[in-house]
């Protein structure tokens, strides 16, 4: 009896919380289908009285969305590929080789989580400028490649693979690089997938690097473009809501495809050992 009441109680709490999380998104989504005139007309109604996609049409026509999408996709995809590759190599070196300089560098990498680039924005900007990367997509891609999280995930994973496997490969005459490429990297595929999803999300939603590196609106990523709409003196809500919804579509699609991997990602495996 007690257990039953407990069950009902926790179900109610769970769903009240879930509603609290859902309502802002639902309201935002439903509002984006209202015509501009209905957005502010009292009394407000949850569902649009007059469903329309006019906000989407205006947003798509007034802003160069195709270009922002392209820019953001290039940044997200290229950075993700490089991040996975570099993280795998670096994490592998940390897991399977032993030297004082590897340990020292590993601590340096961990320190980057404590001291993120946002903190030293002005000088990071100067470095990007001096490297000739200012106002280019490469200026966002290159500095974002190394992530402590990615390197850490791979290191912990490779540590679980027995050293005997590597020894056996060496005895069979497989070189160090061959062992990594042909044996270890394929084994680490689950980690690569999880990191790829995370990296894509980080880069798709990133704001600070694009903000300081890009000047030319034709180079803008979605987030910077959206910020320029929301920061305007007179916010055009109809356009802003639709534009924001459009910017979410790729992440939603990604989630729909990789839901299982994302939800079961044992990010802890990196943290608990």
């Amino acid at each position: 009896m007690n257990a039953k009441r407990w069950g009902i109680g926790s179900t109610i709490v769970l769903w009240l919380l879930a509603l609290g999380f859902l309502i802002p998104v639902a309201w935002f989504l439903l509002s984006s289908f209202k015509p501009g005139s209905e957005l502010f007309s009292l009394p407000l109604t949850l569902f649009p009285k007059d469903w329309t996609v006019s906000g989407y049409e205006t947003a798509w026509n007034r802003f160069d969305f195709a270009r922002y999408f392209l820019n953001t996709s290039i940044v997200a995809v290229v950075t993700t590929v490089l991040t996975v590759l570099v993280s795998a190599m670096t994490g592998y070196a940390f897991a399977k080789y032993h030297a004082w300089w590897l340990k020292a560098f590993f601590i340096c990498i961990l320190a980057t989580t404590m001291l993120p680039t946002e903190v030293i924005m002005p000088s990071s900007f100067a470095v990007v400028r001096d490297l000739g990367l200012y106002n280019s997509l490469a200026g966002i891609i290159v500095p974002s490649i190394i992530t402590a999280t990615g390197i850490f995930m791979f290191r912990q994973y490779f540590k679980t693979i027995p050293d005997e496997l590597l020894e056996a490969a060496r005895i069979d005459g497989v070189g160090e690089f061959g062992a990594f490429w042909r044996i270890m990297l394929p084994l680490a595929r689950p980690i690569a997938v999880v990191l790829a999803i995370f990296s894509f999300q980080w880069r798709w939603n990133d704001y600070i690097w694009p903000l300081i590196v890009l000047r030319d609106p034709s180079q803008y990523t979605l987030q910077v473009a959206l910020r320029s709409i929301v920061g305007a003196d007179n916010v055009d809500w109809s356009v802003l809501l639709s534009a924001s919804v459009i910017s979410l579509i790729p992440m939603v699609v990604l989630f729909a495809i990789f839901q299982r991997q994302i939800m079961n990602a044992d990010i802890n495996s990196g943290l608990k050992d």
Partner: protein
Amino acid sequence: MSRTNTVDGLSAETSALVIKGRRARRVRRPGQRSTSLVLAPLSFIAVAVVLFALFFVWPGALGLWYSFTDYTGVGTPDFIGAENYVELAQDPDFYVVLGRTLLYTVLSVPLHFVAALGIAVLLTSTAAKGKAPARIIFFLPWLISPIVAGVIWKWLFGENFGMVNFIIELAGGTGLRWETDPTLALVLILIVSTWGGTAFNMLLFIAAIRNIPRSYLEAAQLDGAGGWQRFTRIVLPLLRPTSFMVVLLTTIGSMKEFAMVQALNGGGPGTSNMFIVQYIYRTGFERADVGYASAASMVLMVILIVIAIIQMRFDKRNDLA
């Protein structure tokens, strides 16, 4: 016996040389092996080392140098000693910004922690129903960028047009000043950041809770421990490493909160909710006072290092390295 002295019918002298050579090679082998054991990892980490030097060490060193100059982003920086730091120490605006950032961090960390842990416990409990769809709902904010999160909540909490104030007025109250009251604006920032940050922390906790052996909890139950006791005596201590991680990451994340606030209220009303990263951005990029902004950056960096060290101290089982 003879095989050890001659090689394939060669003369004794030649055989000796060949054997000597083989031995030498055998001796050199481990040497070669250890060169490849140095060269291989070195090339594996090479890219990361270069990127680390370019985008962490160089900006760090440059920022330190700029903080002692009057650099404005163009021209050559002139060394002016500790002037920026002296000015910063006397700048009331800086203290307000720093105080607001710390207040926000102190409030947001427990909020994030309790929300993520509570939801993770509910989602792993056997009692609650409908956990699969609920989990997806809680995870949705992870897909949404900080900028769009700001837009969504600004729309919901708009002072004159938001649904929340509409409902309050419908119920007979007067709409709250979410945009023009500094305290309410901060409350709103806290709500939004908790909503946005829960998904990731919740995943960490869910994975950690699933790793707790069932037998521990069953044994405790047999010994007569109630639900709350099982939670505080068994679950919580076993979640310690994860809790540590969540607290550390949330603290750092809160100290550098920027994008979401930009879209939500721009640090408003006025500059009352301006946090330190926004302050650095304004000083360094909008006022082009790079030297001064760099000094503020260095102060923030020291604060973050101190926070990290203090938290590491608390985590006795810190074996990251």
